[in-house]
């Protein structure tokens, strides 16, 4: 057990609080403070990951009794999967701080406070092995994102933030209902309200049809996670949230928050409700496949770049859902890889949109065209990221999607074939996006004066581009980190 774990874990929270005491008018100091905080968070995340004795096993980082909180015990633990997502979370924090360095707002302290608070809450969710902890952090992370979108977002930010909050919180309440039910049951059996994996498994919830306890609990959790991922038809909040959110919100949302829904499935649904997963697998697989096609087709017809990227996210998340529910080792591995790949490419796309928007103040595709001529640095980096998102071979996006489709094919051929159409559709809408922004003639006069990316601006896109290619060429580098955990997610685990 790491004695210093609690301090490390609380760093983002302390950093968030420190912004309250930063001098209001010293913008530079606040930004530097944020950068240092992001670097420290990233550094300790790497350290925590490298200190992990065996990524294939959940290693307890801290365990303590909470006699005052319903007398439960609380465990923070980490394995290859949670460690990888923890790293991604810290990495994206750094990316957010650098990519939005040019942000101009009077509420800079509030802005960074919310971002660091969000990072902390995500870390809390990832490291909690008790359902309580997971739920608490899961709910806590709604608040900073709600305020981030509601305060720093676009014109319709109030509507978007409200819709996001309501839809995800509705899912949480369903999850709470199941938690209360299981707690009551756990108390009868064990005399304790604790809800760790072991306890949930020991409840032996019966499965004998839709109305059996295991099935109903499975569906409450599934709807909660579907709303978070989001999976078609629970997706309607995402395009609104992405379009209205500030860039930081979009990056964190697409990069890590959506993955928490998937993580929830892997950690709390698949290992503990095996019969229900098996019985409802095809329904979820079809929903995933519909999401792939629906997201892609809707992205195709968008005229707003951010909305296009948002719908592409729905399509990509459809693949991941398929991958984890196919319960095929190859596909599950691919799905986890795709989580990381999507966490690299989509934030990259949002950063690209941010740079365009800060120069032209529009997200309309028809207002661009030919900007490769004036912004070559941007055009190259944006192309690599776009290629990663459209799953071009030798980029990170290809590996995950290929593995998912191959793995799913063994389980459900129709779903796999349907999903494969997404491979054709994604280049259509992403190339359309790239073509309409970077290629062709410089039609609009305003675009002729656009400045290319500065080195600071190019840095996050460059790092993401390098990762897109490196992970595409050598996926084993990442896969090796979570290989050992796979059995947990395709069998009863533990």
């Amino acid at each position, binding site marked *: 057990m790491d004695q210093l774990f609690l301090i490390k874990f609380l760093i983002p929270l302390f950093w968030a609080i420190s912004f309250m005491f930063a001098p209001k008018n010293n913008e530079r100091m606040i930004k530097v403070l944020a950068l240092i905080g992001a670097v420290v968070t990233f550094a300790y995340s790497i350290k925590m990951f490298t200190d992990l004795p065996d990524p294939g096993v959940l290693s307890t980082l801290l365990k303590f009794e909470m*006699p*005052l*909180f*319903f*007398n439960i015990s609380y465990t923070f633990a980490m394995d290859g999967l949670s460690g990888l997502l923890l790293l991604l979370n810290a990495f994206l924090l750094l990316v957010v701080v650098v990519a939005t360095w040019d942000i101009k707002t009077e509420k800079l302290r509030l802005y960074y406070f919310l971002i660091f608070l969000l990072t902390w809450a995500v870390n809390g969710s990832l490291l909690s092995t008790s359902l309580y902890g997971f*739920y*608490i952090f899961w*709910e*806590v992370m*709604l*608040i900073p994102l*709600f*305020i981030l979108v*509601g*305060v720093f977002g676009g014109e319709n930010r*109030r509507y978007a*933030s*409200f819709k996001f*909050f*309501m839809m995800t*919180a*509705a899912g949480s*309440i*369903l999850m*709470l*209902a199941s*938690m*209360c*039910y299981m*707690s*009551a*049951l756990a*108390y*009868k059996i064990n005399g304790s*309200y604790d809800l760790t994996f072991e306890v949930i498994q020991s409840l032996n919830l019966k499965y004998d049809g839709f109305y059996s306890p295991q099935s109903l609990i499975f569906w409450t959790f599934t709807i909660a996670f579907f709303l978070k991922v989001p999976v078609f038809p629970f997706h309607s909040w995402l395009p609104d949230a992405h379009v209205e959110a500030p860039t930081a919100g979009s990056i964190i949302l697409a990069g890590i928050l959506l993955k928490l829904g998937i993580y929830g499935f892997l950690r709390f649904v698949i290992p503990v409700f095996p019969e229900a997963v098996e019985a409802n697998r095809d329904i979820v697989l079809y929903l995933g496949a519909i999401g792939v096609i629906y997201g892609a087709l809707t992205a195709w017809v968008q005229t707003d770049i951010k909305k296009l990227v948002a719908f592409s996210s729905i399509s990509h998340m459809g693949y991941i859902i398929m991958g984890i529910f196919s319960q095929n080792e190859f596909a599950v591995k691919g799905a986890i890889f795709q989580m990381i790949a999507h966490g690299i490419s989509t934030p990259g796309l949002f950063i690209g949109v941010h740079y365009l928007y800060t120069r032209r103040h529009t997200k309309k595709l028809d207002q661009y065209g030919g900007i490769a001529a004036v912004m070559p640095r941007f055009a190259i980096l944006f192309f690599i990221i776009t290629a990663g998102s459209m799953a071009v071979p030798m980029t990170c996006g290809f590996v995950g999607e290929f593995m998912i489709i191959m793995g799913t094919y063994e389980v459900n051929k129709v779903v796999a074939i349907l999903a494969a159409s997404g491979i054709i559709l994604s280049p259509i809408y992403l190339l359309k996006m790239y073509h309409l922004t970077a290629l062709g003639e410089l039609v609009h006069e305003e675009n002729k004066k656009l400045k290319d990316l500065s080195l600071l601006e190019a840095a996050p896109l460059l790092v993401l581009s390098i990762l897109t290619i490196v992970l595409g060429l050598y996926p084993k580098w990442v896969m090796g980190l979570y290989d050992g955990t796979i059995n947990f997610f395709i069998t009863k685990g533990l």
Partner: protein
Amino acid sequence: MENLTFVQNVLIFLALNAVSLLCLNVNKIGKYCSFTFTLIAAITFFAMLFGSNSFAISDLFMLEGNKILLLKIVSVLNIFMILINGYYSLEKVKNSVLVSYMFLGGVFLLGANDLMTFYVAMETVALVGYALVATSGLENSREASVKYLIQGSVISVIFLLGVAFYLGATGSLTLVGATVVNQEFYAVALGIFILTTCFKLGAFPFHAWIADVYSNVTLGNLATNFFISKIIIGFKFITMMQILLLECDPHFQDILIRIIQVVAVMSAFYGNIMALVQGQFKRIIAYSSVAHTGYMLMMICLNPDEAYETQLISYLVIYSLTATGVILILNQFAELNKNQDSREILKGGFYRNKGLSIMLIVFVLSLAGIPLTSGFAMKYMLFTNFFREGFTIEATSILISSIIGLAYYIKFVSDLFAEEAEAKSLPTIKTRFSETLVHVIILVSIFTVGIAPSLFLGMK
């Protein structure tokens, strides 16, 4: 000896409040005297309770265990309300005097062991309630008060009919240990008591008075109502019904519990839906209280138990405290906007007073049941109990209704961050020390209960 002290203290309390009442309309000095006497009366009463474990006056009145605990809490809250009212303005001292009488009625209601004592105490609380509404000074206050009085009187008469049936069924008016000889009469009596409970707590479909009354009282009076009447009436009616249901024939018991569950679920849905579509925040609070009544009513279905009683007290106190916090902050916003009763006045509030807005955010998030706040601990405790007792469908339905509740609570937060540019041109909202102190106390209690709920809830 203790019992004698109790009677003496009640007499002192009454005497001091009577003097206070006499001083009220003299002049400014009279108002100061009135405030002082009321405060002394409240403090003396609290001092008497401190360190005492039980009081009894024959079989008609008995205070012990959790009732004493609740009384101590309400006494402290009563002192707070007197201080706040006095600090706001001397004109509000009359509220404190009225509230003192309501408090005394509440004391007797809480200790009532017999239906006649219960009835008299209930009417005392209700009468002060009518007076509080009537003296609010708003345009339709008197009309609302009359409506409330008429509806309340009808219910009182119906309650008396229930008392008659109870007497017929048991041959006695005592609430504890009566032997039921006629189960049909007993069931009818309990049915009428349930109806009274629903009316007094404002459950659907007996909630009609709530919206009218809430929207026609000042926010200060509304806060008072939450502090005193909601807590005591809620506790007494719920625990009384729990005990009375135990003696009921299983067949009738089953029917009555079903009725309570249906009313509870419908109240939760109706209250939350209606609150969502309101534009006036007093009405939002009114309908949200209808929804919370739904949660409370479900507690009647639990078997009487010491631990459940402690949890009920915690729930009532924390809910009332948080709701009062919200009302007091809304009052501060309203005062700067000619007492306008509209959600509009919250717009841009964050840019006019950050501290106050953050408090309001925490309070409404607690009411919405977000983790790490007392609201979550209460919600979790309540629903786990319901599931434990096998009320799965009812508990799930009420939880689903709370999704709607989230919507109007979060709208408050959303409003606070709206219209930044306009808000900056408006004057900042200044807070008085007493208000800040009360808010901080509520804030601390929200987080304390949220982080360490077992200290207060006694989860068994």
